[in-house]
């Protein structure tokens, strides 16, 4: 845990297109354990939002309960945040989005929060294709309640006290693919190079974007025998692709080898260029994505990168036919039918 933040800032910190320095995207000092994967993810979110030049106050942060869900306090201090109840962030995000679709929604959850108590809400927010970035900070345990196994703990993984987990794990990436998620990615808190462009792409994606980030819990699940430790993850990560996010206004300059690249145009005009490390994995093809995931599982590897993307499916706003003007900004005149109309309704009830 870091006890103080240096107040001194370099006068020539770089600014983004909106003129903001990175500081404008920071949060309060973290109170998580030093070395906790969640803090690296917060840093990646800050970096991604800064690089995207988002207006901080047009972002809304939502979370459930857990160490992971606490972390929105530690980034984007100029954004409103809502630390709701355990496992129920998706519903709060859904209502918030319905009320105002003009904000960028960043949801932060944990593996306990999403794969145990919140499994139901997780499944339903996926199928609604709610426009949000849904970040699972996955450490295979319940950090905040002192390290019990979570539902994402792998079968055979050892707890700190040496007990072996006998149960199958729930892979949220697999679940999300199965129930129709339109943006599915996995990453590792220790791989900022991969995580930052993924976050940017997820925010630009029109619809629901899941990033399952392996985020080791240094205090309760970082020992030998755990399959969610830093060491184990580093050894077993197998990147399916290298992601490069190109904002809409930028000229595309990078050169990729023929047949090894895959480009996806996002709704806001930006491009997602993927350098494939596994040529058979085409993230635009659901079957290929499922196969790649399964293959990596059989090999005992952890597949990361952009696993699947579908830019065609209608998002929640479209399916709900919500008009352009956010519902929370409609005036009484636009909402209330008035007395004359009520008289007609009365007349129809006689």
């Amino acid at each position, binding site marked *: 845990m870091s006890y103080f933040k240096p107040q001194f800032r370099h006068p020539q910190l770089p600014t983004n297109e909106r003129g903001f320095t990175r500081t404008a995207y920071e949060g309060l000092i973290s109170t998580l354990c030093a070395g906790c994967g969640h803090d690296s993810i917060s840093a990646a979110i800050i970096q991604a939002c800064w690089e995207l030049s988002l207006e901080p106050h047009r972002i809304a942060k939502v979370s459930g309960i857990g160490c992971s869900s606490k972390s929105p306090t530690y980034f984007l201090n100029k954004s*409103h945040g809502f630390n709701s109840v355990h496992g129920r962030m998706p519903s*709060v995000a859904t209502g918030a989005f319905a009320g105002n679709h003009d904000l960028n929604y960043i949801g932060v959850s944990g593996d306990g929060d999403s794969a145990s108590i919140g499994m139901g809400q997780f499944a339903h927010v996926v199928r609604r294709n709610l426009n949000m970035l849904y970040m699972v900070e996955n450490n295979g345990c319940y950090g905040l309640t002192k390290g019990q196994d979570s539902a994402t703990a792998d079968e055979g993984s050892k707890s700190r006290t040496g007990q072996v987990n006998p149960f199958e794990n729930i892979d949220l990436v697999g679940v999300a693919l199965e129930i129709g998620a339109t943006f599915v990615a996995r990453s590792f808190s220790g791989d900022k190079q991969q995580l930052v462009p993924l976050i940017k792409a997820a925010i630009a994606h029109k619809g629901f974007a899941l990033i399952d980030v392996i985020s080791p819990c240094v205090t309760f699940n970082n020992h030998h025998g755990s399959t969610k430790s830093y060491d184990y993850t580093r050894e077993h990560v197998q990147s399916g692709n290298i992601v490069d996010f190109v904002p809409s206004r930028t000229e595309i300059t990078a050169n990729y080898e023929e047949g090894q690249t895959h480009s996806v145009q996002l709704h806001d005009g930006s491009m997602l260029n993927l350098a494939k490390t596994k040529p058979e994995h085409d993230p635009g093809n659901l079957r290929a994505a499922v196969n790649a995931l399964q293959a990596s599982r059989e090999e005992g590897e952890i597949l990361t990168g952009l696993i699947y993307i579908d830019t065609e499916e209608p998002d929640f706003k479209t399916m709900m036919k919500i008009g*352009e003007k956010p519902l929370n900004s409609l005036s009484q005149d636009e909402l209330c039918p008035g007395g004359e109309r009520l008289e007609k309704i009365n007349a129809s009830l006689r």
Partner: protein
Amino acid sequence: MSVQQKSSSSSKAKPVISSVNEFVIKFANVNGSGSASANTLFAKSIFRSGIPVAPRNIFPSNIQGLPTWYEVRVSEQGYLAKRGGGVDIMVSVNPQSMMEDVQEVLPGGFFVYDDTKPLDIRMLRRDIHYIGLPLTDITNREYEDARLRQLFKNVIYVGALAALLDIKLDVIDKLISEQFAKKEKLIKPNCEALRLGFDAVRESHSCPLAIRVEARDLVGDKIMMTGNSACGLGAVYAGATVAAWYPITPSTSVAEAFEKYASQLRYDKETDTKRYAVIQAEDELAAMGMVIGANWNGARSFTATSGPGVSLMTEFLGLAYFAEVPAVLIDVQRAGPSTGMPTRTQQGDILSSVYASHGDTRHVCLFPADPFDCFKLTVDAFDIAERLQTPVIMLTDLDVGMNDCMSNPLEWDDNYQYDRGKVLSAKELEEIEKFGRYNDVDGDNIPYRTLPGTHPEKGAFFTRGTSRDEFAIYTEKGEAYQRNMERLLAKWYSAPDYLPEPVITRSGKSASGATASHGFIFFGTSRDAVHEAVDILQNNGQVIDMLQLLAVPFHDSVREFINMHDHIYVIEQNRDAQMRTVLMNELDCDPLKLRSVLHYDGSPLSASVVIERVKPLMNIENIQSSN
């Protein structure tokens, strides 16, 4: 003014109930047989004849095949509560329940049945009148298709009743043509079916009966509507934009009504877009989460559920209370606990609503009695929730929610402006030196809110269910936590300023000059039964004052009313005297003074039940319990 009498000229003659416009008729049907619209047609024809009417569905938790009943009280005196104590006419269309149906007819009453087959002799009673109708014969003769036979059978018995009770055919014809305005082809066959029954019964029986209908002009501009429709429409008028819900009887039709009216009133054809969102959630937890999320963003949002749903929502209700996020919850109560009697009425969620959630929580609750109230209080609920930044729970029940209730017409004042509460705009934020979400700058225990996305630099904070200080900064300091809890409590005590006042009816003094020493306290759908009971008791010389609660927490006038009377009777539809508990808890009043009058068998409250229960308490054993 009682027009009902049981005349028997000699001891041997069968008694005959004779009455104009004051009777109860009950239809025994099979669930899913299409009887509902014919039954409604009947009730509506009474209403159109200018006579107060109160129809009620009694139905099982089942889709097809089990018995259902439709009980209609016709009351020239305007009594709309369930009358209780047997029926005057039974229209028996369900062989399955015939045995019990025949027993329900009062001596001198009428049993209308299908005499295509002879009646089982076990159904024969000497003290009632049998009116056979060859229903199956007629439908077999007139219709080829089995489905049509079933459907028109219902209209045929309505035609027969028109002859028996002297309801004018043109009134019913008009209702039919209104009902099928968009399917004109159906008007003629329905009117014909009506006449088949009308003519058939006139051939075999002398019409009308001693019980009959005479047109009056007693309903004025009243309307007939279900409470659930009124709630849904109220939410549209209140400017609710996000409705999140999970299906459960008897509340489902609230969300459906909201969607129906919103799709007519808030749909933009040109762009094919809606100025509302109805989200069918995965469960009630999610429904409440969505409501809180939308309200956090400043969109008016509500959910509707019943007891089991309220149980699931309690964790979220605590969050909304503590984090001070507005929310509106409409609880259409049914008989619990657990699945209990899901299609029967009760007022059993008082305690689980007022004190919903763990820790010290108290919620504002509202209690409408009829569709007029349902509409009005739904509109009020959104103002109250935003003004007080807290959940508001409106407790209705199956009786008002799902039955067509005669009610005063809905009212709207075009000059009225929504009270959106204390929400800071970007400009207002600009002028504030330091914003503190939970900082009570006005001294009224209600701090200012900000909505996400308002201002680039100011007003952002973290909404959370964990303790925090006045500036929304996380803290586990006991003093800060306690300061906040004290403010929430003070806010609760000030809530009555924004809540509807109780309705107090003073009886004045009795003939002997005595002031009322008896006070009746009640709420919700108990109102009509209590009013009727009090009429009867006052006619018998009792002096009684009434207080109808519309809201918790209580106004001072409730305490004063209790203090003013020697004996208070708290009348409610549950086993555990839940409102009495709330009165004791909130007003610290002497428990011995509050006597319980309870009814909770799942049927609506009737005046006779009230009287039977209060008699021993009031020492008035000799009073008759009906008019």
